């Protein structure tokens, strides 16, 4: 299997918010969705998922609710709150800008100095 890219610190939160923005999910579902939308190139450490979920919930960006899963088991679902949506937008914006800046730096050739 291709070596999965290492996840930068702090991006996990962003990815979770994005995953949930596409529709409410339980923890395992979030894991699968991230794998799915990254086209299997990202594999999340399962151990770090739940602490992150709890943190995001504590900060008010995710709202939990109990419901029934596909196989009729009780599961805890998360959905994005309005504040969470704003947070996701800000983070995305910041990420893009940062990526731009860094890409620019990395592109510089000795001739452009």
């Amino acid at each position, binding site marked *: 299997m291709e070596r999965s890219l290492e996840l930068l610190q702090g991006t996990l939160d962003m990815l979770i918010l994005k995953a949930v923005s596409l529709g409410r999910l339980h*923890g395992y579902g979030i894991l699968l969705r991230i794998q799915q939308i990254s086209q299997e190139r990202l594999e999340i450490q399962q*151990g770090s998922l739940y602490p*992150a979920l709890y943190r995001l*919930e*504590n900060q008010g960006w995710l709202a939990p609710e109990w419901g029934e899963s596909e196989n009729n088991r009780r599961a*805890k679902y998360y959905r994005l709150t309005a504040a969470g949506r704003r947070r996701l937008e800000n983070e995305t914006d910041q990420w893009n800008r940062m990526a731009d800046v860094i890409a620019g730096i990395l592109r510089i050739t000795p001739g452009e100095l």
Partner: protein
Amino acid sequence: MDAELRFHVEACENDLIARGVRREEAERQARLAFGGIERTKEQCRDAIGVEVLSAFFRDVRFGARILGKSPGFSVVILGSLALGIAANTTVFSIVDGLFLRPWPVKAPERIVNVGTSRTKEPSFGTSSYSDYRDIAQAAAFSDAVAYGLRGGYISGQGQGTDVDIEVVSSNYFAALGVTPLMGRAFAQQPERRADEGHSVIVSYQLWQGYFHGDPGLPGKTTLLDGKQFTVIGIGPRDFCGLRRGWSPGVWVTTDGWITMVPGEDSLYTERDYRWLHIAARLRAGLSIGEARAQLQTLASRLALDSAASNRDIVFAIRRPSDQAGKEANLAIYLMAMVALVLLISCANVASLLLTQTERRKHEIAMRKALGAGRPRLICQLLTEGLLLSFTAAVAGVLLASLLMQVVPSIIPTVAVINLRLDGRVLLFTACTSILMALCFGIAPAVRAAQSSLTSVIKGDDSVPGHVTRRLPLRTWIAGGEIALSVVLLASSVLLLRSLLYSQQIQPGFDTRKGVLMLSVAPPMLYGYSESQAASFFPTLTERLESMPGVVRASYARRPPLTAMETGETRSVSIPGVTGPPEAEHLKIRYNIVAPKFFATIGTRIQRGREFEPLDTPSQVPVVIVNEALARKLWPGQDPVGRSIQVGKKSCRIVGVVETGKYVSLHEPEQPYLFLPFTQVFSFESVMLIETAGDPAAFAPAILKATTAVDQHLPIVGAVTMRAYMRELLGEQRSIATLLGALSILGMLLATAGLYASVAYTVDRRTHEIGVRMAMGARQSDVLKLVLGQTMGLGTGGAIVGIAGAFAATRLISGLIHGIAPGDPLSYAISALMVSAVALLASYIPARRAMRVDPTIALRHE
């Protein structure tokens, strides 16, 4: 949370099964992929901060189990900590009672003290009534009260007794907001004020003691100095006036005092009769600075209006907490010393815990392997430490309450304070325990967190070739304990030598003589006229001298050496000699004595004679001076026969006696005057009876003879001169004893700690020692190896200790007499003693090291 996480794992499992993996295999892989459920739970909780509290309780339960596993060990630790805490709590409650506890009055933080000072030499002294009235008018104060410390004699309820009296302005209770327990306070309306001249308020302690808690006391009458007074109220239980460390038995108004002592009405008229303390309540919103300014204006005005009395008088304001001075220093010093003992105790505990931590290596390593982070580990170990210290604190508090019952009888000076465990004291104990826990918990905790995981699990204990060049923590701890012990011991030695010196001081009379001092109540309070009172004592003297065993008897206004000296002086000058006013009129202290006084107490007469019965009022007034006074007025000449002006009388000097101590054993030489009883009247006196043999044996017979002369005249006290002198040094002795006890305790603890420390080190290095011996090291080399470190830290500790002791004794330099606070001999003695003990403590385990059989040692793990 649990359900959620399990769901996740199950879902993962199901997915794997759906992909064709076998059930058990799927379960295993799912679980592996997820990691530890418990750990994740912990992390989740951490993420939202709930973890702390539940972790704390878990740690507490675990800590309790650990303590339970080694009960002997735990008991020793708890015991020594509890002792340390008990001592600290007790000393703190003393300090609290003396300085910190606010008065039980209304709004005590707004109350300040006002005192009289002089422009040339700033001080803070008592004031006169007239000044008080002016000060009370100042706009800065909403109220002002005056109070004076006096004494008297209360009777009427069987045997009478001396009583401390606080003479107060009539608004005292009202202005302070103190409500009597029963009855009422002094009336304030002008028309009723005159009645209060016969009213007295009895303190709670006197009510319980002398009046046996009589519930019907308000309204009854009693006698003060023989005058009838009505008890109008009883003071509240914890109100003892405003003077720290002094507790009056009764309160009377200034009018009441004049009733007791006729002639004292001069307190109203004489503006320079200064004996009242003043306390005032600052008006809301005003500061001390503003009050000071107003008083300055007042003082200037009075300096002009009443120049005779107030020419160089200014008024000063102090917050009650500033009053302390010498006593505060002593209190701080005692607290520091007690804290040192506690520190040594903590150091021992730290050492012990370090040992225990090393033994728990495996358990800790497991925890780390299971994912406990460093902070978690430190937290857990600290919590165990907290548990230990809190348990010790509870035991310590219980012990302290016991100590507080005992201490007032050992140190009489604190008897006046109501020692109790109130909020402040308990808060202090709690803070001390937390500090303690940190103190001895940090070291083992950090050490544990640092330990290398793999080496521990492998069982690889002693790392070969690992020579400790850096001194181990334990050595520092032991060195610190030695330093602290030196501090304690040095103080002890200084105080002890001070005490010995004080006991040798010559007070100007023969303390080894068998003399009994007998006081009767002033006869004039019991119906005697002045002439009858004057003849009472010679009659009694004759009667006593006729008794077998009595060598001679005399009497004087007050004992030859007494702190009860009220500071009264007579103005003395030499007629015909002119000079600056201060030199012309000397204020000299005096005593009024009877014939044979000096012979009875054993004072040497250097020139001239004693007073004789011939020195009657019709003859020339005579006086006797002490050598210091003679030297001052007629240096190098014989003063006998010369004239001297005492007050308004011209007197002739008939004798010179050796200079002695009159107020305090440690006073500098002072001039003193003796006046004859035959010519000068004294209200009260004390009998001095010289006996052949132990005066205590003759006491009953003497008392009987005295009562036979007049059975209605109460005997107030009888004490032998020897007992009296012993008691003079009572406070000094108490402090020296206390410090001696503390230093012995400290040294014992430090020695035990050092012994354990060296023993442990030897144990750990047994393998190394075996190697060395196998390689040819001699027994003495091994000894040097083990002791070398101890010697080093002993020397270092001693040096630090001496420096510390030197700094600390600055605080009590007032208590050290006869030697300099920096006396090298005392410090040297202490350092040597501690070093010797430390050496001995290390030698014993070291000897065991020497005897080690190399073959056994090499196999030692």
